[in-house]
């Protein structure tokens, strides 16, 4: 049994404006399961991408068994022995288990009679053009057998449940005979018993000498599967804990470090009036029984883990998705069904999570994007001219400090932070009473984040109510008046920022 070691030495990754990883040197040993944890923005995904070959480090090296290796692409990484299983499975549902396990590497044979012995000379150029089906079944079966998994190789992957599909994905990775197997949030879609099966499988694979790296947000799972826990914080390696000695508080302390509570400006008052109320709102399979009130000038945060239903809730409130039960009260109206168009007219704004795909029309200019929600307001007698558009957004551009030389440039040329300001600006010109923000600081650099906070505080001063969904718990505590906690589609509590530091909030967000 070969035991391998994967080491990173002084890995550094810089992006324009941020340092994602700074001097990260870690060792993953064959035969052990390493849990890799860290809060959002700690650099976990970046490190995984580097080890998976999809991103190149700015500096630093990767060593496999003491020898330096270069992972030039995802394919390259697989072939060199580093296999990755992502949260989003990359299987072809219409093909069988065996075909998926050997995807793109199906054994081939030439154009020969079934016996396989005779070869007709003039047909030998056709060698290797056909798939050798018996070999496909056999080889795939062999991979599954080595994993001690019972699964029919001839079944269509599309017919399998999520847990089984994940096993196929792992089998695909294992068919490369890797030294290292990395799994990114593997249990997010699994039920309890399926998770247990997965853990057993991983222990078996570790027993075969593979180094397993297991990335997760679910700290409570780690005692059941991991041998060691490695923590990243702010792009740096924060420490390793042996499983036997680690308590959840220790892990969280390593993840968050010294928690410094920043001060919200003192002049932010919450008004008495309610600008938005939600009663028993529910959508099958996503969230249920959600009730809360948003007051004038209040910044209300919603904290929760991935999959807790926060984005779905926001989209339902805005009318982007339908909801099945409950009602929304806004601008004196009670609504059981609504649409983005209607919500806009009632003074509600929404900045979606996926900036590029959902919030901006990339092919249009900055000016066109900034005016997109308020065109009717800007037009006079139905006529919309560039001059009027530019005049109406000039104040906005200054106010939001969107730094661009030319408003006619395509919005795709802006940085993430400036794009986010365009999205917020687009909605500010509709003069909303309520603004729903889904992950407003995702993917933007530190400076732009501070500017977004300033914008939120200004909105509060103007009496606009903000509902902020964010995975960055410290930011919620810094910015908001109140924070709601959402777990598995339901509201699980409410906190005031001064009551709770970020690490305790994190623990409360974790699912039981």
């Amino acid at each position, binding site marked *: 049994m070969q035991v391998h070691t994967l080491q990173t030495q002084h890995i550094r990754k810089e992006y324009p404006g941020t340092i994602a990883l700074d001097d990260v040197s870690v060792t993953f040993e064959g035969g052990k399961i390493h849990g890799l944890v860290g809060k959002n923005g700690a650099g976990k995904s970046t490190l995984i991408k580097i080890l998976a070959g999809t991103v190149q480090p700015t500096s630093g090296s990767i060593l496999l068994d003491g020898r330096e290796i270069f992972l030039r692409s995802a394919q390259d990484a697989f072939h060199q022995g580093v296999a990755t299983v992502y949260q989003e499975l990359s299987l072809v549902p219409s093909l069988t288990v065996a075909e998926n396990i050997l995807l793109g590497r199906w054994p081939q044979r030439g154009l020969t009679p079934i016996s396989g012995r005779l070869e007709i000379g003039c047909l030998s150029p056709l060698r290797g053009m056909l798939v050798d089906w018996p070999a496909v079944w056999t080889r795939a079966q062999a991979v599954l057998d080595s994993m001690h998994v019972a699964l029919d190789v001839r079944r269509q992957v599309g017919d399998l449940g999520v847990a089984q599909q994940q096993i196929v994905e792992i089998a695909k990775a294992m068919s490369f005979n890797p030294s290292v197997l990395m799994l990114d949030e593997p249990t997010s879609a699994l039920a309890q018993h399926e998770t247990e099966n997965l853990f057993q499988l991983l222990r078996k694979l570790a027993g075969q000498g593979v180094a397993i790296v297991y990335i997760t947000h679910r700290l409570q799972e780690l005692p059941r599967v991991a041998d060691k826990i490695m923590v990243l914080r702010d792009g740096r390696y924060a420490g390793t804990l042996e499983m036997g000695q680690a308590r959840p508080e220790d892990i969280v302390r390593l993840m968050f470090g010294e928690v410094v509570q920043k001060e919200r400006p003192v002049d932010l008052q919450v008004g008495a009036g309610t600008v938005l109320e939600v009663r028993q709102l529910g959508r099958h399979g996503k969230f249920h029984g959600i009730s809360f009130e948003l007051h004038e000038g209040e910044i209300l945060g919603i904290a929760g883990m991935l999959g807790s239903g926060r984005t779905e809730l926001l989209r339902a409130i805005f009318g*982007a998705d339908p909801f099945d039960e409950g009602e929304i009260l806004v601008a004196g109206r009670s609504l059981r069904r609504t649409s983005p168009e209607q919500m806009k007219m009632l003074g509600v704004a929404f900045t979606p999570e996926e900036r590029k795909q959902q919030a901006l029309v990339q*092919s*249009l200019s900055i000016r*066109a994007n900034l005016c*997109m*929600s308020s065109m009717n307001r800007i037009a006079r007698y139905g006529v*919309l001219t560039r001059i009027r558009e530019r005049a109406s957004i000039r104040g906005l551009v200054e106010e939001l400090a969107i730094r661009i030389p*030319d408003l006619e440039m*395509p919005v795709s040329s802006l940085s993430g932070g400036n794009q986010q300001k365009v999205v917020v600006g687009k909605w500010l010109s509709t003069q909303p009473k309520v603004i729903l923000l889904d992950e407003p600081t995702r993917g933007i650099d530190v400076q732009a984040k501070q500017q977004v906070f300033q914008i939120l505080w200004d909105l509060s001063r103007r009496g606009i109510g903000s509902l902020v969904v964010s995975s960055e718990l410290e930011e919620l505590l810094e910015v908001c008046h109140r924070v709601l906690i959402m777990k598995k589609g339901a509201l699980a509590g409410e906190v005031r920022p001064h009551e709770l530091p970020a690490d305790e909030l994190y623990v409360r967000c974790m699912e039981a």
Partner: protein
Amino acid sequence: MNDRGGIAPYPGMLSWLRQSVMELVLMVLCTVLAFNAEGFFTRENLLNVLRNVSMQGIIAFGMTMVIIAGEIDLSVGSAVAFSGCLTAWLTGFLSGPGGGLPMPLAVTLAIAASLGAGGAIGCLTGWLRTRFRVPTFITTLAWLTVLKGASELITNGFSLTPFPRWYNFVGGGYVAGIPFPAIVFVLIFVLSHFVMNYTPFGRSVYAVGGNAEAARLSGINVSRVKILVMGSVALLAALSGVMQSSQIMSGNFTTGTGWELDVISAVIIGGTSLMGGAGTVWGTLIGVIFLGVLVNGMTLLNISEYWQHVVRGGLILIAVLLNLAPSERK
């Protein structure tokens, strides 16, 4: 001046040249033909070209909006035939023993009904797209055959000729020396240009074509936009059908055959992207004129019809390559 959907031009002379390629090519073509083609540069010929391009050009402006919105209409040719045949049949019926109406009233009602039917069919296509997600490619492909069949049914395979003498004015008449269809063509151009560049609706069309989901989440009523653009192109096709029936003074099911290809070609040559989200009405105007001048020139130069087809097809390919943004060229 040219807002290709809001995409900023590069600064400088070179960029202006790159942006105005089609206009330059058209000028060059006209110059070449003026010197080499017998009878090209005469008033009579040029007015003829204008009249010919008007029929298809009107539809092309509607098609521009449709393609910018990310959709397509393959049935415009059949819609032309259907509209003409319906107008002819209704005129005959309403002014005949069945209806007993005076001719001017019969004609007016017939035209109104044809335009209404055309617009309604287009709106239906748009509705099917937004309500049931049926691609407009599929629906209009179906209409292509259905409307052609309907035209054959209405006319029973014959050419219907119920029209009075004065009806010819719409398609064949002149106003101050300019063919009436050309006047309609210019009017529709001005209207389309205005709507696309100076109204919220026009801006919404670009937004919907560029990113329908982002447009929806910005509060734009995407359904309404799609239904209206599909209705508009169908309405313009019906209008063209009426004018065509006036020109040939009959309702004939063979009119408009293959027009969808010419119309779409003109729109593409004019710089509109089939992906949606970009393109201009002015570009389509140039594309329409360019194709018209080219066909006219080739005919005057006695180039065989078959070669003409080859040339027209090749042009679309060249036009698409020329109009690709640098980032798309690999």
